[in-house]
């Protein structure tokens, strides 16, 4: 319990108000010295578990709802910005500047009929949107939103993050297969292939961060960033961003729901709020993923002058802007080329990144305790080397790797006979 609350200003106040007693005086009573009488909370000693449950629920409720509000605002922002990228106005009818558009969307989705196709597997069909949304929200459990603001600082935070985000492949596949629609099937099958493939380079890319930070806890990773890891791990950042956009099926890797190819992919058959869940999961995924990227590579909530929460939000929305920008520019990658890109291009680069980072730590780091520390000069040298390695390796691999796959050879008998001129 104490491990959870250490450094957590989000939950400590409420917890102490409920359960402050002699046992947890260290955390709950400011200025407490051994021998002094501790503050007394509402609950008697021995009821800390209740206090903890209440605190956690309240914190989860707050974070979730604030996040949902943010996600709603983000859907508005995305549509608006894409409108501007496309030299049009975007939604501007509901409320001032169209700000109530997400509310209108939500009302529309809630009042729509929820159709379950005849050929669908009802259980899986209903479960899939929930699985999709829940996994997306579980990421919030470990994200530090600001200084001392997080729900849980578990020591395997990064591992938890990776594990939880991979579940959405299952949700997408469930939706695709349960719909009993062939376009949805295509989407589901593509999902399995693509989401699992991109897990690999993504995990490899964060290994560099782990090596530098020496911890799996996201709070520790933020604290370890004296220099943003973007500078020390440009290659890792690139792979992680590409992998993340594939994981969220954002363009240019939105093959799972490629509207021009497979109509709406895995959620072709969904309507009403079930579709709304997918929609919510997709849009909020951009925010959570931007949060993860900001935490891992952009110093997290750290920043001068402004409060830490503002810095975090700024970074998240800055990254989201880049995602929107990319979405409004790039065409879609074909599914086999998506796969080739993961396995032929990103995977070797990820391995290279680990190798280079490990070598640099060995050479440049001074051993201290269990880990190694770096001088400022060492860090800058490392950044220089890594930027060079990134540009060089991407350039070399662009030449080496061809993503084009030939067509299936078709014998002439299957085609029209063509006489020469």
């Amino acid at each position, binding site marked *: 319990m104490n491990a959870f609350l250490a450094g957590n200003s989000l939950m400590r106040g409420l917890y102490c108000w409920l359960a402050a007693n002699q046992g947890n005086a260290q955390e709950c009573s400011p200025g407490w010295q051994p021998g002094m009488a501790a503050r007394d909370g509402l609950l008697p000693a021995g009821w800390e578990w209740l206090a903890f449950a209440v605190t956690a629920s309240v914190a989860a409720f707050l974070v979730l709802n604030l996040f949902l509000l943010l996600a709603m605002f983000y859907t508005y922002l995305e549509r608006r910005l894409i409108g501007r990228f496309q030299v049009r106005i975007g939604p501007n009818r509901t409320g001032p500047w169209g700000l109530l558009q997400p509310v209108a969307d939500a009302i529309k989705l809630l009042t729509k009929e929820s159709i379950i196709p005849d050929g669908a597997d009802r259980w899986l069909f209903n479960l899939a949107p929930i699985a999709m949304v829940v996994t997306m929200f579980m990421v919030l459990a470990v994200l530090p939103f600001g200084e001392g603001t997080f729900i849980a600082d578990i020591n395997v935070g990064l591992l938890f993050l990776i594990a939880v985000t991979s579940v959405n492949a299952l949700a997408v596949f469930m939706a695709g297969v349960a719909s009993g629609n062939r376009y949805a099937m295509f989407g589901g099958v593509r999902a399995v292939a693509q989401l699992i493939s991109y897990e690999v380079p993504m995990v490899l890319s964060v290994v560099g961060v782990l090596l530098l930070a020496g911890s799996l806890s996201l709070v520790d990773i933020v604290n370890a960033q004296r220099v943003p890891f973007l500078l020390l791990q440009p290659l890792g950042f690139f792979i992680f961003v590409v992998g993340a956009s594939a994981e969220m099926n954002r363009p240019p890797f939105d093959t799972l729901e*490629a*509207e021009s190819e497979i109509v709406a992919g895995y959620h072709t058959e969904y309507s009403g709020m079930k579709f709304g869940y997918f929609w919510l999961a997709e849009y909020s995924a951009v925010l959570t993923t931007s949060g993860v990227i900001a935490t891992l590579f952009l110093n997290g909530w750290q920043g001068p002058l402004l409060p830490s929460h503002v810095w975090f939000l700024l970074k998240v929305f800055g990254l989201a802007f880049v995602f929107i920008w990319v979405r409004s520019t790039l065409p879609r990658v074909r599914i086999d*080329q998506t796969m080739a890109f993961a396995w032929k291009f990103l995977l070797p680069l990820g391995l290279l990144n680990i190798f280079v980072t490990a070598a640099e730590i060995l050479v440049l780091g001074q051993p201290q305790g269990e880990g190694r520390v770096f001088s400022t000069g060492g860090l800058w040298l490392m950044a220089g080397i890594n930027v060079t390695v990134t540009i060089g390796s991407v350039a070399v691999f662009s030449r080496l790797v061809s993503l084009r796959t030939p067509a299936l*050879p078709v*014998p002439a008998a299957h085609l*029209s006979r063509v006489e020469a001129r």
Partner: protein
Amino acid sequence: MTTGLGLSAAPPGERYKRLLPGAMSMRSEPVTVNVGPQHPSTHGVFRLRVTFDGEIILDVEPIFGYLHRGSEKLAEERTYTQVITLTDRLDYVASMTNNQAYVLAAEKLAGLRPPERAMYLRVIAAELQRIASHLMATGFLLNDLGAFATPLMYCFREREKILDLFEMLCGARITLSYMRVGGVFQDAPEDFWPALRKFLKEMPGYIDEYEALLVENEILVTRTRGVSVLTVDHALNASVTGPMLRASGFPWDLRVVDPYEVYDRVRFDVPVGKAGDNYDRFKIRLDEMRQSLRIVEQCVEQIEPGPVRAESPALLRPPAGDAYARIEGPKGELGFYLVSDGSIAPYRFKLRAPSFINLTVLRDLVIGWKLADMIVTLGSIDINMGEVDR
């Protein structure tokens, strides 16, 4: 020539394994999917019955006719002037060229010659329409490639300006009915010329922008280079014309080889592609837009004041006979075959629809490629269902 797969008692997987040795390597069944008639990127109500092995296309059967309105039958009971309104609705993103091809056929039938100024106005209108049609084709092709509507909106922005010019010319934006047998309906208003000059000045910059936007884009290049290659021999054999044939590398442009109206007085190049793949079919439309701009510029310089309509009776009664007139439409050779029996209505009105005939090669182009490629290839053929189904 094989269309369809013939009758075979073998299970479908076995059948395809025999036809395409590379297919069905895993223990799987071919899947048949109806792409369309309600599908975001079939460019109208068009259906492709596709058999897949996973994502790979084993067989395609295009099915159309959903938009069949019987234009050819309707024309048989309308006067020669009234038929113009029908031609507007054939290829509804290129009404001007439809009008032009039809009035050329009717003029050939009636032995009329339009005045010079009318011919220049027609050429200006037709070339503007070609730009508009190519903009639509490019925008939708890129949309099919998955570039989330952005290039489409950019293309629409420029097309809007052309539609504004058309509104000045004839008061309508889509269904124009501007041309008449023996000329055009009305001379261009005075504010048309400055607006046209402004457009001609701006447009090359916008074409540069499209090129910067996606022509070099690695994703686009990887997806379209070498995909669905159409050889010149195959194209000619299948009567494929227009940008598709030129993208295969064959410089066949009716404006050059069989100049009509005033095309023999303007200088322009015929852009050709190298490989005949989807990339060339995408790129050639951008190049053709530049050439169209050149033609319009020269026409604006050469046009002289004068009448815009030859004297002809209100109810045209061409002598009995037949005539086939063709123009280089935005999608290919657009021909009208008219038969007259001396009455006020054409006895037979037949349209050689370029996108209908260009579709012939679709099956051969996409077999062996993937679902996503099929969509792009369909987009690169640039079909218009109003014209395919008539």
